[in-house]
């Protein structure tokens, strides 16, 4: 007994270190292996408050750029509206048009925390469950896609950024509809990698890459970026470097997309 006590006394520093380190490492491992979203909890609200305060200052420095983007988008939307009205005139034949149903619903949100310099980057936005956000909704901005919502609290949501090495999205070439998987390699916040495009497809630099719409998360045809480099590496598929159209360093306003027909589609495709 005395020996044990002496042993404990002699090595208490190491043993105590071991205990604390095991606790910390197991926290980290759980966090890495499982969806981080589960850990979004009360703590998120505390730090979200801080982040909101910080971003309310930093927003001022981006006002000019934000205004420019918003007015550009306004113009684009006005043009679309014109087109839609006109097409409605054309199709007005007194029948009930069951195809013309709203499929997506957009919610505007403000980015209150954002990072681009880690391997797993996340954003926090200022809309949550109360405003109808739920996990696994797509997030886009006027320039292109941003990420997917993960954890949702009452008033905030955390978004897995495209700049996260665990993020994958189904993407296609706009001109010929060949699709592949887009992911980030953790190196440059302006570039991502598109894989699985077969080698016989003709690809030119500058080709547009958009979302494929195969997952129920993003609608088809949301801009992702343009082809910057393409080469065939060992085998039958291209590895394409895509220059992202979204500038992740100056995100302020984003739209969260809820797919109103997601449940129906999931039921059909039978996965949970």
């Amino acid at each position, binding site marked *: 007994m005395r020996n044990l006590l002496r042993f404990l006394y002699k090595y*208490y*520093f*190491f043993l*105590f*270190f071991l205990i*604390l*380190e095991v*606790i*910390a*490492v*197991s*926290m*980290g*491992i*759980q*966090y*890495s292996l499982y969806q*981080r979203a589960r*850990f979004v909890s009360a*703590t*998120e609200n*505390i*730090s979200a408050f*801080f982040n909101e305060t*910080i971003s309310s200052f*930093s927003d001022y420095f981006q006002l000019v750029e934000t205004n420019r983007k918003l007015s550009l988008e306004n113009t684009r939307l006005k043009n679309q509206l014109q087109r839609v009205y006109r097409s409605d005139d054309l199709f007005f034949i007194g029948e009930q048009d069951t195809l013309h149903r709203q499929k997506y619903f957009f919610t505007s949100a403000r980015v209150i*925390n954002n*990072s*681009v*310099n*880690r*391997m*797993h980057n*996340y954003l*926090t936005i200022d809309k949550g469950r109360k405003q109808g956000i739920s996990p696994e909704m797509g997030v886009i901005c006027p320039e292109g896609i941003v990420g997917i919502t993960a954890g949702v609290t009452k008033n905030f949501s*955390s978004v897995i950024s495209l700049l996260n*090495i665990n993020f994958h999205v189904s993407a296609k070439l706009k001109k010929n509809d060949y699709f592949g998987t887009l992911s980030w*390699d*953790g*190196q*440059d*916040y302006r570039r991502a990698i598109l894989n699985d495009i077969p080698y016989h497809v003709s690809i030119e630099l500058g080709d547009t890459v958009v979302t494929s719409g195969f997952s129920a998360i993003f609608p088809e045809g949301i801009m992702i970026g343009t082809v910057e480099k393409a080469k065939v590496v060992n085998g039958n598929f291209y590895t394409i470097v895509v220059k992202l159209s979204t500038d992740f*360093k100056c995100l302020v306003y984003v739209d969260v997309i809820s797919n109103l027909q997601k449940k129906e589609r999931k039921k059909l495709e039978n996965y949970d």
Partner: protein
Amino acid sequence: MINRLFRNILFFIILLLVQVLILDNLQISSYAVPFLYILFILMLPFETPGWLLLILAFFTGFVMDLFQHTYGFHTAATVLMAWFRPGVLKLIIPQDGYVPNSEPRIHHYGFAWFMKYIVILVFIHHAFLFYFEVFSFHHFFTTLFRVIISALFTVFLIILSQFSVHKSKGFARG
């Protein structure tokens, strides 16, 4: 004693604010990410008992984790670094030993000693943190590069902070 406790708490809060409000928003590149907050553990007095050192490290890392939305990474890295601290101090002990009741500061033991102390511990912390965050050795050299650049950045900030602390202290006394 009370004065010292109070000063350390103040120091902790200032470091935390600098880290969260300034450094975390300073997105220079994904290769240069400074973590100045570990200075709190590095600057503790020599006589700090082992258990207190580890508890403070755990606490500091945990608070950083809360703000960075990463659970366990900073805690584990900081605790590891705190465990290495007494060993490193013993390894680089100056010829006439450490003055009782002093703190490991640049103007007590000189630039060369301080650099050795800081570089070893910052490198341990950053290496563990970055490899743990990536959670694989898949991008081994990219991560190593990140570790080196970020550690250099942190060391630079620490040296800078030493001179500012030294100056203000002298000013208060004079």
